[in-house]
């Protein structure tokens, strides 16, 4: 009778070994599947911007794509082709209908988009905002440049370039909040910190090279002694630089531009533009997707109660690019 128990033990032992082997191999598979923080390729995250063809978004999109590569998910880039609030709402509605894994939005308007964003969040789709905020919406997070402080930085740089005295002007896009904030920061700083300086004009460049050039030409005409012009976005900066070069005066006004596209960098390099403000656009895209992934996968279950699952505000930083460090901003 002892013999049979040995046989039983052997049989059960072998079976247990087999089960353990099977389980360990399955776990190996799981590990292989979820090595690191990895999602599924059929999880689709969408980036929505306005004016989707412009160069400015390409760096954010690259960040978005790089994060997708790292997380093994797929991404899609959508948006309004023009600066058109209705088109962006329509596009966003279409995207919500497709129920993606997450949406990163750059809001064309701080209020008008809120309803649609809330609709997406209520439908259970994680939404984060980047670059341009919609503060009243239910979106989980905003990642972008603190535009007011970037305006402050621009004012400080301007003061440094003009020896804290003289007339300065701003070419901006007044109906867009981020540009308005930059302008506000700039104006307030000049007024508060630099009594010798005065902002004599704030013109609308419509975010376009040609319009900005026209605005700059008007400024140059109206204020011949102008010491500096701050353009709140890249196309405007190029336009302003063109106008200043055409004007052909000995004492050229200092130009501070925004963003780091090729044209702007070239102008910084040859001295037409004195400085440009580099935003962390790649970071915006990259961390937007990381946040969305985190929201979609409940990675933060261990968080402290009452705390938001992802930071509500992330300042992606600003750097002043001048002739000294411009080479670092060219593509390698």
């Amino acid at each position: 009778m002892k013999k049979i128990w040995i046989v039983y033990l052997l049989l059960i032992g072998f079976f247990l070994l087999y089960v353990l082997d099977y389980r360990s191999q399955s776990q190996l598979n799981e590990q292989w599947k979820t090595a690191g923080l990895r999602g599924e390729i059929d999880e689709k995250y969408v980036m929505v911007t306005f004016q989707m063809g412009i160069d400015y978004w390409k760096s954010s999109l690259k960040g978005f794509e790089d994060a997708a590569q790292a997380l093994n998910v797929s991404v899609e880039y959508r948006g309004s082709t023009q600066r058109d609030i209705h088109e962006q709402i329509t596009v966003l509605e279409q995207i919500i209908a497709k129920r993606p894994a997450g949406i990163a939005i750059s809001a064309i308007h701080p209020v008008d988009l809120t309803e649609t964003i809330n609709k997406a969040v209520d439908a259970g789709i994680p939404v984060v905002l980047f670059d341009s905020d919609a503060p009243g919406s239910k979106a989980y997070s905003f990642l972008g440049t603190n535009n007011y402080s970037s305006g402050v930085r621009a004012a400080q740089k301007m003061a440094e370039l003009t020896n804290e005295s003289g007339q300065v002007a701003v070419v901006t896009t007044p109906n867009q909040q981020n540009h308005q904030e930059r302008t506000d920061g700039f104006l307030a700083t000049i007024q508060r910190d630099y009594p010798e300086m005065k902002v004599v004009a704030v013109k609308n460049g419509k975010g376009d090279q040609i319009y900005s050039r026209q605005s700059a030409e008007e400024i140059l005409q109206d204020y011949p002694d102008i010491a500096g012009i701050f353009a709140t976005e890249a196309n405007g900066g190029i336009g302003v630089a063109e106008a200043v070069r055409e004007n052909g005066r000995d004492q050229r006004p200092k130009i501070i531009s925004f963003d780091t596209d090729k044209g702007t960098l070239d102008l910084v390099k040859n001295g037409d533009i004195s400085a440009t403000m580099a935003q962390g656009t790649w970071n915006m895209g990259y961390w937007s997707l990381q946040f969305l992934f985190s929201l979609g996968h409940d990675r933060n279950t261990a968080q402290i109660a009452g705390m938001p699952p992802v930071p509500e505000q992330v300042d992606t930083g600003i750097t002043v690019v001048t002739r000294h460090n411009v080479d670092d901003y060219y593509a390698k």
Partner: protein
Amino acid sequence: MRNNFKSAGIRHLSFNNLPIRYKLIIHFLLISILPSIGLGFLIHWTVDRVLDRQVTNNTLQLIGKVNESLETYVENLQNMTFLVAFNPDVQRFLESDRELGSLQESAQEEDHYDIRKFLQGFTTLHSEVAGIMIVNSDGKYISNEMYARTESDLTRESWYQEAVRNKGIFKIVGHPNERNVTNHVNYKNSEVVSAVRAILDPDTQQVKGVVLIDLKLRVIAETAQDVRLGKTGYLTVIDSNGELIYAPSDPYIEHIPLEWLNKDSSGTHSHQADGRKLQFIYRVSPFTNWTTVGVFATEDSILEIREIRFYVVSFVFVVCLLGMTASFYLAHSISRPIGQLMSFMQKAQSGDLTIRYWGDRSDEIGLLGRRFNEMLLQINRLISLTERQEQQKREAELSSLQAHIKPHFLYNTLDTIHWVARRKGAVDIAEMAESLSKLFRIGLSKGNVIIPLSDEIEHIRSYLQIQHVRYQNKLDYVLMVDPAVQELSVLKLILQPIVENAIYHGIKERRGPGLIEVEAKEQGSNLVMTIRDNGKGMTEEQLSKLHRALEQVVSSEAEPGAGRSPREDWANQTAGAVRRGQETKGYGILNVQARLRLTFGDKYGLSLASTLGEGTVVTVTHPLIRDEYNLNGVDR
């Protein structure tokens, strides 16, 4: 005979020698486990084959789909190059070289601005495009995203030359390695695939410029990555030069040589690489000239197969466990009572006949047990019967012995009488006394049951001598003993009672002298002794009565009788026979008959024939016993 049997046993294997328990266990295990293992193997084999075939087919279909979508992307790129070439601003830009100076610089810049806006439209609609660059034959270029690293002439670049060689046909040049063009958004060479097309003057067939488009590889990666093959299989895309367009981050094999794949437009191929066997399923897209390859490790079976195998093994395990338990239990339940029965029988064999099988089973084993009990009862009954018979024999012997103890004293006295008579000269008396003494001496014969025939004859002679003296001329006798049978041994005192009967009931009743013949001879395998007298004989009634009495002695032994105790039965009959014998005149004969039968069996005994007025013949059938000691030994 015995040898044959043995070799047959060996031929039947030693299986026959196994205990029944093991036979049963082996039997049960064979019919439970072997089929389930067989079934398991069959299922596994079939599933393996079927799934393998299906996976191959599915993979080919998936690869077909992937190729289709890749073709769509590439076709889109091609369309873009045409759209770019159709644009009048672009046309002007391409021809600006030849009409140098015809355009104002500012107008040229405006054109460039327009072209950039136009190109922006493509990246607006097609986010998979990483960049578009238009280069004219002077080496001047326009692009939103890309620019030359150095001032060197872009028309000398290999991709430009490649486009020129293809004469306006769209061409994918693969990863942009070592080109003098960089992307402002930092798309690395490994992240894009370049396609080029030369724009020709339709009249002169001169190359006016080249459109370069970079496609983000992510699109291809997503298309290919979306497909999961088996457990660890993946898709990879290689171009017509064998250069890797797309591969996952940790591929089995870094480089797939083209010669493995170029036999047909699609197919499968197995190859040993890196110490493991890999299987390739591939299909070439004729439009893009790319080959999409599914790569598997052959030994890593498909996840589903592993799962099925797991269930099959679990099933076989459970069957084994249940089968083993059941077979052990069944074998035990069958073999244990058999073993018990066997040990009972062993005990019975070794002499303990009081043992009994206890159990209330009603199967064959139970029946066998009850039969065994009955058998033991029967044996007990027979043994006690034998004991009784033995006792009976002893009693008979004892009574015959007792009958001889009294004569012992007589024998001594007779001897004295013999000598006194001889001294006194009374010859008759002396002779008679001597004969009588001889008679007694042989009758006693030291208590032996078996004596030599010669002694028995001597005994008869003495007896007849005495009777002769007594009846003077009235009795004559003849002893005819075959010398060949002289040395045989016979049961003691079988002739005397018959002769006595013959004298007292035959000769004495007769008028005139009578004759008694005693004859002993070998007949067949028996010793036959015949006592013949010419006396009065018997009536039919007397004869048949005597016959019955003799047969009753016989029948009482042959049939112990059902129902009544055989001992009682036998005793009654014998007693009856004896009583009747006393009443008639058969006591001595019946005694002889009983002793013969008890000693030698029914085959032997007395037979009687008689005719009234003419005489009686008694025949004694006695076995041939050549060595009295043998028989005495057995008897004792």
